[in-house]
């Protein structure tokens, strides 16, 4: 027995050292089955971008990079950036990832920048730079939010056209309310806290970023504060919408999927949401009943908060960096993939020469029309809480802002308290 025991100790140690204690995840440098190089690719699933979409898209891009095998990773929630941080901390940072905010990863040398040559195909190649370099392929523009509305419910409240000014929006909301119709459907429940913040994003777009496009850069430089009159005024409009009873507080219990379902189920007349909703709208029974407009400004000029980016980033430390980049570019430039993401997620592709597939639904077509009009009118602004790179909030503040938006919707904070809290959080994040 003693001999067995003497053998067992070193064998166990060796086995654990070799297997149990080695870095988990895919060894990016190793060859997979059949001598292929293997890379990991972090994705996320939503009702629109389901597992079948990712599997098919990966297979198409994989086929364009001979000798490569791609292992799909799926973030457990829509917070793929948070998940990427966990993977980094545990030594499993993926080789390629999509829609992960590069802030922090880029500055610390974890992500590889894209070269001008690699970005040549993109309409806005230098979107969301970090220290002047682009770390995320800017393939997709997402106006966030536009306001989707039910034409039927508008008609029931005798509203004949969508509002063009903020006052008209207030008047229309009052009419809807008087007919017993909730004006705005919002979300924010469970893990999807982001869905509570889009009215705030819209109002900061119309009342702050439109006048001062580099407002967040000024905030980073300490020249402005959230509690200043302009930002506080935009926040107060949000507070007043809640106080007037135009925002359905029950939304705070709904996750993203249930929020979408609530709007499509007629729980309210207006739904401030990113343009990815267009696809779900087109798939719904009420697709011909859904209209869309840009959140109104005081003077009626167009203002559409938008974000261009959302694409692939590549780990600077990938042992197969060349192949990882090839895969990422192949994935993003594959017409079939782009068509698929347009059909499944209502993407507005920001690539030169790209035309959306024929036969897109009426909600998507209306969405693109509003965005194109904003581009023509030079009314595109950054989207508060969505922007990344040098224009983004400091790490951790986006999530704090979601909680503050929930406080506003729940009636627990007024504009002064919410903006002061945001300034406090900023101070804390900046000093630690």
């Amino acid at each position, binding site marked *: 027995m003693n001999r067995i025991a003497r053998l067992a100790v070193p064998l166990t*140690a060796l086995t654990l050292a070799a297997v149990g204690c080695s870095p988990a995840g895919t060894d990016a440098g190793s060859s997979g089955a059949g001598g292929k190089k293997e890379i990991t690719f972090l994705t996320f699933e939503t009702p629109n971008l389901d597992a079948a979409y990712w599997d098919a898209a990966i297979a198409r891009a994989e086929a364009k990079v001979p000798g490569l095998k791609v292992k799909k990773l799926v973030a457990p929630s829509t917070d793929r950036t*948070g998940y990427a*941080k966990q993977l980094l901390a545990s030594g499993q940072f993926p080789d390629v990832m999509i829609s992960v905010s590069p802030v922090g990863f880029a500055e610390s040398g974890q992500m590889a920048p894209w070269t001008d040559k690699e970005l040549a195909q993109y309409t806005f190649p230098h979107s969301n730079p970090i220290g002047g370099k682009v770390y995320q392929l800017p393939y997709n523009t997402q106006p966030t939010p536009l306001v989707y509305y039910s034409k039927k419910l508008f008609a029931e409240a005798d509203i004949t056209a969508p509002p063009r000014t903020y006052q008209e929006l207030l008047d229309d909301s009052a009419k809807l309310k008087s007919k017993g119709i909730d004006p705005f459907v919002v979300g924010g*429940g469970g893990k999807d806290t982001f869905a509570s913040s889009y009215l705030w994003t819209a109002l900061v777009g119309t009342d702050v970023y439109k006048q001062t496009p580099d407002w967040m850069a000024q905030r980073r430089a300490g020249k402005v504060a959230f509690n200043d009159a302009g930002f506080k005024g935009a926040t107060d409009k949000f507070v007043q919408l809640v106080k007037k009873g135009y925002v359905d507080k029950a939304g705070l219990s709904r996750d993203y999927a249930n929020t979408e379902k609530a709007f499509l189920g007629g729980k309210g007349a207006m739904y401030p949401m990113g343009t990815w909703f267009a696809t779900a709208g087109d798939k719904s029974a009420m697709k011909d009943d859904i209209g869309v407009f840009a959140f109104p400004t005081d003077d009626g000029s167009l203002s559409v908060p938008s974000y261009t980016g959302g694409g692939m980033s590549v780990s600077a430390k990938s042992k197969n960096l060349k192949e990882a980049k090839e895969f990422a570019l192949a994935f993003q430039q594959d017409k079939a993939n782009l068509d698929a993401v347009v059909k499944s997620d209502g993407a507005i592709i920001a690539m030169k020469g790209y035309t959306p597939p024929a036969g897109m639904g009426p909600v998507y077509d209306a969405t693109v029309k509003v965005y194109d009009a904003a581009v023509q009118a030079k009314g595109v602004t950054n989207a508060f809480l969505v922007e990344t790179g040098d224009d983004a909030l400091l790490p951790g503040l986006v999530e704090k802002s979601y*909680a503050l938006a929930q406080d506003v919707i*729940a009636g627990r*904070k007024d504009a002064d308290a919410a903006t002061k809290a945001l300034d406090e959080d900023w101070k804390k994040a900046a000093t630690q």
Partner: protein
Amino acid sequence: MSLVKERAGIRTDAPPRTPPGTRRGALPRLWHFLGFGAPGLLVYACFVLAPIALSVGYSFTNANQFVPRTRFVGLDNYTRLLTDQEFLTALKVTTILTLIVVIVPNVLGLAVAVLLDRRGWFYNALRGVFFVPVVLSSVVVSVVWQAMLTDDGLVNTALRAMGVHSPPGWLSDPDIALYSVGFIISWQMLGFCAVVYLAGLQSVPQELHEAAAIDGAGPWLRFRKVTWPMLAPALTINTVMLLITGFKAYDHIQVLTGGGPGTGTTATLAFSVIQTGFTANRTGEASAMALLMLVIVAVVSSVALRFLQRREVDF
């Protein structure tokens, strides 16, 4: 003496047996124990002790996974946390949640156990039914309850059908959400408590009940004077397990409320640790939070254990 051994057939030239604990037998015995203990010890060292040691180290630094230069900051993280309103609120939220999670399943679990302490297939089946939530994943349980407790969910739809015009926002009302989460965790742990109490009930010697009955004790007095003291070990197990469950609550919070609605409503210590470490990237501060949490759980559990064990009696 030697003659006696020879007559008894005992070899006198055989080496004497090494008494246990003497130096000569210690080394082989050590190898022996290491042989069996090494796999478990190594796993424990790799996945429990090493991370705790690393966390202790990080907690004295300003570690940030995106800032390569890490600086020693002494006790700064700890002193800041002890005056940080957000941390203190998370501590308060965790305490309230833990109280709910300790009290509700203990009380209801005991009641269920008393009701199920019968013979027959029906009661056996019911025991299984009550235990099902315990073996389900917390995420699954949370998803199911979230679907039922949203404004358009089963519960409020039923309440509206019964004429309640403004049913509560179980997960959307900041004043109610924490209690809803506490109820859901309690619901999941109820079966565990019931089974532990049931085992305790079934180990109470029948003769004690009979003796008490002969002495004129009624059912309530027998429960109070015989059954309840004999259930002390079960109460200890349940309370300590529930304390730990309450203090480390994270997954239910993440799925049901995401730490909201709003600030300081359902964000527990465990939830705040994850947010601070992986969202705000402040690994050093998150490590200090985690260690404070570890100390709080250890102290509370030890005090509870000591207090409850004093109640335990042997017959």
